[in-house]
């Protein structure tokens, strides 16, 4: 039952996101978000459509590694104050191009796994996908605790080489950010 509700919610979010994607060009957009509870734990499945600008693609092909950071926050809602951050999780993927093998190499900073892809789209899809990720123990989320989660993904500019920084901070070509997407963490 819970799984069914969660699926409805994820479908709703997916439709909303697909509608908004029509307007987007090169950016990071949330394609789907599927929160669910399994074995007394809150999990999410999410996928982001990551599309690089020409400038970023050019830099990638020139050997500049980029880092995509997916940030998940667990919040406690408060009446008169901003929501309190209970937990912040960063899922960081580094993507780089390998000229010898002509493929795209990804590295997961969280678990140390690496993987290579023949084409860029596959690599981007891989680093933009979250499968079966546990965000919170169910026992910690009481019905009246007013907990919520939110997720976003963005290109980490701080991870780029230092000489690029004065320019990329003021360049729209390098601004790849998705909006925050919230979901409720109920039982």
């Amino acid at each position: 039952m819970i799984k069914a509700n969660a699926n409805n919610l994820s479908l709703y979010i997916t439709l909303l996101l697909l509608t908004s994607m029509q307007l987007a060009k090169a950016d990071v957009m949330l394609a789907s978000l599927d929160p669910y509870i399994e074995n007394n734990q809150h999990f999410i499945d999410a996928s982001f459509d990551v599309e690089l600008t020409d400038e970023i693609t050019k830099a990638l092909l020139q050997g500049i590694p980029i880092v995509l950071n997916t940030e998940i926050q667990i919040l406690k809602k408060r009446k008169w104050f901003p929501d309190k951050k209970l937990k912040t999780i960063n899922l960081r993927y580094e993507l780089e191009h390998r000229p010898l093998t002509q493929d795209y190499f990804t590295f997961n900073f969280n678990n140390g796994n690496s993987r290579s892809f023949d084409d860029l789209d596959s690599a981007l899809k891989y680093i933009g996908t979250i499968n079966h990720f546990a965000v919170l123990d169910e026992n910690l989320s009481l019905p009246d605790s007013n907990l919520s989660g939110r997720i976003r993904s963005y290109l980490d500019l701080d991870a780029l080489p230092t000489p690029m920084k004065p320019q990329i901070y003021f360049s729209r070509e390098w601004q790849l950010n998705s909006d925050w997407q919230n979901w409720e963490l109920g039982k």
Partner: protein
Amino acid sequence: MKRGIKLITFAGFSLFLLMLGSLLLMSHSLQNPELFDQYYSILFILNVIGLFSLIVLIAINFRRLFRQAKHQVIGSKMAIRLVMIFSLLSVTPVLVVYYFSLDFLHRGIDSWFDLRVEQALDNSLELSRLALDVRMRELLKTTEQTAKELSEFRDAVLPFEIDQFREQIVANELTLFNGKKTIIASSSNDTSSLVPDLPGDNILLQLQQGNSYIGLDVIKNAELLIRIVTAVPQFDIEKETRVLQALFPISERMNRLTESVQSSYIKYKELSYLREQLKVSFIIILTLVLLFSIFSAVWAAFYSSANLVAPVKNLAKGTRAIAEGNYDTRLPVPSNDELGYLVASFNDMTDRIEQARNNASASQQEAEEQRRYLETVLSRLSSGVLVINPSGYLEKINVSAALILQIDDASLEKYDLITLSDEYTRLTPFFECISNNIDEHNDEWREQVTIQDNTGEQFLMISGALLTNNNKDVIGHVIVFDEITALIKGQRDAAWSEMARRLAHEIKNPLTPIQLAAERLRHKYLPGMESTQSDTMDRMTNTIIQQVDTMKDMVNSFSDYARAPEFNPDKLDIKKLLQEVIDLFSTMDYGNKVEIEIEQNLPDIYGDEKKLRQVFNNLLRNAVDANASDEDNYLHITAGLISKNDQDMIEIRIIDRGPGIDSSIVNSLFEPYITTKQKGTGLGLPIVKKIIDEHNGVVWLENNENGNGATAVIRLPVFHSAYDFKQNKRQIS
């Protein structure tokens, strides 16, 4: 204000240190990204804010400085000039360095990249690929051969056979799976790896098109492997498609070499891509350093100019204070340098000026006291004192001098002697005497001068001396004079009295025998003489007797003048006395028309009634006698109160219409034996003069202004109080 400046200076200095540290860190972050990479953005923003703050601080300072210059604040123009000079001196070399640094930067970074190096790297990468390609083709053949051999086995037996095949072809991993990626059999030399690494969908798609996949792959531990995926030949169409994947290792040396070539290639490409960004970053840092240096220099210029100008400003203020007479001004000594020495000298100078001023003030006070002392002494002196400068101008005159000369002392000062002589004709002999002696350069002199006026003669004894300074230069003349009129007249009166007494004695003695002889002659010889002779005898003896009587009267008058009867003064109503005398003369009916004009309420005087009655008698007699020669016989008598030299006096005028007084004797009328009458003894007016003198009054005769007759003028001091009484009594006695 000072606190604000200190605060701004402290803020500027802190900002300077902060920015310097920040720039150093930024520079490090470019060289060692691992250390400071995460702070680069913050440092960059901090530096921009710092520069902006410096600009604001400098703008505030400039505004303050120009405002001070506009309001003519001391030192502001000098401060502006110093700031300009310091800024120019510091900014110029920095700009030059900046220009050449930019040039070197561009050339330096561009020199890193060379087309030949790039080509070499491309070639080495291509070479690596070719080297691997040969190996991969061999392995592809081996794998395809293995796939062909495996095609003869059924799925159920393959798990038992696959290890042998893997070992046979020396692969790391050999996996057989179907089109749905369901593993049929798998073998691996890595026992820890439970799940084989399956190929992606795009590889399977490639297989569906009939092409085997061969490629280099990095799996799990970033080890480079050769991945070969090929379809297992299928002879039975209805059977499911099977795919064989083999992962072959690359020799460690080749792995290392290819990795090295690739990382170098990537690094070069990365640097090539970052070339412009690097330039921009360095230029930004360089520009920040340039701006920081310029603004810091300008700020330092403000600080230095303020420090340099402060003592000068203090000096200017101190000088102005000194000019305004504030001699206790002391300036803080800033340092031990030349400016400090200058300020110390200024303080020393003000010390000396203050000391000199105090000395001058003390001297002035002393001189003032001496002058006041001298003034007091001079004012108390009974002698008259004049001080005349070398140009002949009167510098000083004391009170006694003014009293003696009967002039206003204030009107005399700053006039020369010639002008004074012309102004006061009465005093001409006096001033001429002084002028002559000054002109003759007499060091010391003494002379007697007689001043004539209508009240009589005034005798002055004048003595003069040169005034010289320490250098014997003549700085003026001092004239001291005394009135010796009383002394002279006393002497003269005494002489006249003595002469009268002797004359009376000498004359009176033979008169009685002459008279007795004449009477005996008459008595003895007259009765017996003939009538013609007796008449002659009678007439002659009578003449002798009458003339002897007359001579006796004359001798008695001499005797009276010489004897000077006792003086008995008392408070006296002069109006009453005058009226009595006039009434007496009126009753005697001399045929005069008498007009009397006496002020009412005339104050009393202090005098001897009997003697004053004699005075009025004598003067009225003289007037009546003078009128005798005139048909009109008009006699006018006035009496009134006047004020002369701050002294109240009663002035009595007896005016006749007679022939007047001969100018040749007008000044000697009051001397004995001077008379215009045929029968006069010449003692009437001297007696009048003597009595009036005894009353501290003055008397003189003057011709009337209309030339008709003469006037006798008497002035007698008014009696005021018992004090006056005593004073007068003492003076008279």
